[in-house]
């Protein structure tokens, strides 16, 4: 069994997914393709200070006109 198939099989149990053997095979194929793409990103040099792209904001930054 491929490592991808092993992983997908284990994850399907952990996530309570009831997948047939055939579907596990197909999902493992997708997963293997994504793993190759993840490898491209893993090779990008980054430092611990390279932060994720932002979205979360606790609240709008106070403007000078309305500092509170």
């Amino acid at each position, binding site marked *: 069994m491929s490592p991808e198939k092993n*992983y*997908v099989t284990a*994850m*399907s149990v952990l*996530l*309570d*997914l*009831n*997948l047939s053997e055939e*579907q596990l095979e*197909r*999902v493992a*194929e*997708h*997963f293997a393709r*994504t793993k190759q*793409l*993840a490898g*491209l*990103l*893993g090779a*990008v040099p*980054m430092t611990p200070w*390279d*932060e*994720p*792209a*932002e*979205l979360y*904001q606790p609240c709008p930054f106070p403007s000078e006109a309305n500092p509170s």
Partner: protein
Amino acid sequence: MTVTAMNIRDAIVKGELSALEVVQDKLDHIQSTNASFNAFTEVTRDRALAEAKSIDALRKAGEPLPPLAGVPYAVKNLFDIEGVVTLAGSKINRDNAPAAADAFLVERMKAAGGVLLGALNMDEYAYGFTTENSHYGPARNPHDTARSAGGSSGGSGAAVAADQVPVALGSDTNGSIRVPSSLCGVWGLKPTFGRLSRRGSYPFVHSIDHLGPFASDLLSLAYTYDALQSPDPHDPACHALRVQPCLPSLQQGVAGLRVGILTDYFDTYASPPARAAAQLAAKLLGATDEVHWPSPAQARAAAFIITASEGSNLHAHNLKTRPQDFEPVSVDRFLSGLMQPATWYVQAQRFRRMYRDQVNELFANWDVLIAPATPVPAPQIGAEWIDINGLRHPCRPALGLLTQPISFAGCPVVAAPMWPDNTGGLPLGVQIIAAPWREDLALRAAAVLEDSGYATVKAHYAGQL
């Protein structure tokens, strides 16, 4: 020759046509052609007639008419339409209650005088580039109904190409406006990430989803885009704080603009006709230099991973409890996404910040960049593989190879309909890319292409008007 949205609006303003006549004609055209193209999943006839009558009443009363007065349009079926169930291409969502209110952009269209004709076909939950939808049938390409209309906004591209509506709205996460624009040969605009509010649309990938218009000519695309603009503090990703109209500068040409053509990755994944289309567009815009886009393969990988993680997370409960009700061609991708390690997702988001800075740095030296929109023209419906320069690629994900890196940066892109040789008469679009918040520059360049006569919509199925 198509009748454009602005032709219709002008005829209504002058009293040459009533909005009701226009809508009746389009409803008849949809009824007689929808079996061929399968673009519409719902026709909102009563609403359309009521909206048309209200435009005619305004004119009769001598009131000023809004910018899209009487213009028929339709929306991808992930936009909320009051009183209609928002399917988002799925079977599962049929169980949901009808939408209580219109989506923000549908409200904008209504305020601008648009007349809504209905909801349009799409890939289930927007996860696809082909609109092969088992629940509602595939959207068919009006230029060859055995071929895909592209996706995920395939119904939007097909409806405009088939002259069922002159304007449509769609969404684009990884290419879902630009791919159907390219394959159907119509104009499309994916604005800057954060330009248009997504409130009231069914989400696919929160951190990459964009909404935007399709049209059968550039002026109508520009009018529609300006009408859609409005800050919206209720969409956390709507970063635009004011309207920046594009119409005042639309005809300024490209003199003084620095225009380049993307190479490397964008050649590798483009077939000869796709390269020819981009090269012709570049020549018409006076581009002489080849430009290297930063890290396109890594950007595509990051977009792919973020899409799979966020997209599958939204459907985790249903993937566990009723996986059999999902679209067969995309459910395995959703399941794979659900299992992705968190470190892949975090790495992709960290990469995105670096990538954003690299792309913004590139635009310090360029105003407009050109690239093909799709590697190939429309594939046959059901095709599993496409050939790009002698290499076999899985068809459904590969149609987005050239669009994903650009939308991941959030740049605005106009998809221009081009007609290169050796496609069997099929269209193949070109991306006109600008720096974030510079839709005006992309649209100015697009106007030059349209004026050249090489970028144009060829409707095969004109209505009566």
